[in-house]
């Protein structure tokens, strides 16, 4: 699964996710990617793209939950993302997210996640595992 989240200089948020799904999945199986609120979600506060085991991501409405914790509990993006990922089965979920303020989160409970981020102030990061 691949995905990208962005906030532009005007504060507009967007997310996109694309996938081939699971190896050896049943024909006709739908995963989390196209299920709005599960693998992909954006509102005026944040944009989220998830990857991992689709059925787990759907059950936990991962992307929308990150936004909901910011919206209803006032959590900062990183705390919201960490809490949502921690609440899902180990080895099942990774996500990238950005907030309207330009905060970035790349959280996962899998062994690794191919990921990268950049911000206007010059911060860049590319990684696979948790170091």
């Amino acid at each position, binding site marked *: 699964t691949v*995905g990208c989240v962005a906030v532009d200089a005007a504060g507009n948020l967007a997310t996109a996710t*694309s996938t081939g799904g699971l190896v050896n999945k049943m024909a006709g199986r739908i995963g989390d990617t196209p299920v709005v609120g599960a693998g992909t979600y954006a509102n005026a506060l944040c944009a989220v793209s998830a990857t991992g085991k689709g059925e787990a991501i759907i059950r936990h409405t991962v992307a929308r939950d990150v936004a909901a914790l910011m919206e209803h509990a006032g959590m900062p993006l990183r705390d919201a993302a960490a809490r949502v990922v921690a609440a899902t089965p180990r*080895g099942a979920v990774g996500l990238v997210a950005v907030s309207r303020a330009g905060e970035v989160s790349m959280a996962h409970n899998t062994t690794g996640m*191919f990921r990268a981020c950049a911000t206007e102030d010059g911060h860049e990061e590319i990684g696979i595992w948790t170091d």
Partner: protein
Amino acid sequence: MGWALALHGGAGDIPRTLPPESREPRLATLRRCLDLGSAALRDGRAALDVVELVVRELEDCPHFNAGRGSVLTAEGTVEMEACVMEGATLRCGAVSGLSTVANAVSLARLVMEKTPHIYLAFDGAEAFARDQGVETRDPSHFITENNIERLRQAKAANRVQIDYTQPLKGQQAPQDPPAPVDDNCQTG
């Protein structure tokens, strides 16, 4: 406030022993996509345009599980899916069950922008793609030798695998922890 972007190429049981020939092309693609997206945001492009631009690039990379390089169903076919969403308006579009569309993310954006709906799937999505004149390819274009081998091994092990659970050459396929009996993850 300033621009920012983040991207992923999938998560899973990625072994720390991942050989350079598997690791480096993916890292190079991440770098290229990061530079592409950063430059677009620096030039004032809208976030929606940037996420589509970056995901198209990732879809075209055969080392990631989307577009060319999509993993295979039990029947040996590709069924690609994608979604796009704009935060300020909550507009969104999604597609599933694509077998010929070169860039599923762009078709998802067309669903968002050109239809009153959110989600089109399978034959309806393919028909919409033809109507919109998006680029299509023969289904074989999306299938890589590596993914044929991954499917063979997954079938042999009777497993459904997420990204990066493929074995390294000469090694046994890593196994997911056993699922609870009431967990239908293994059947999708």
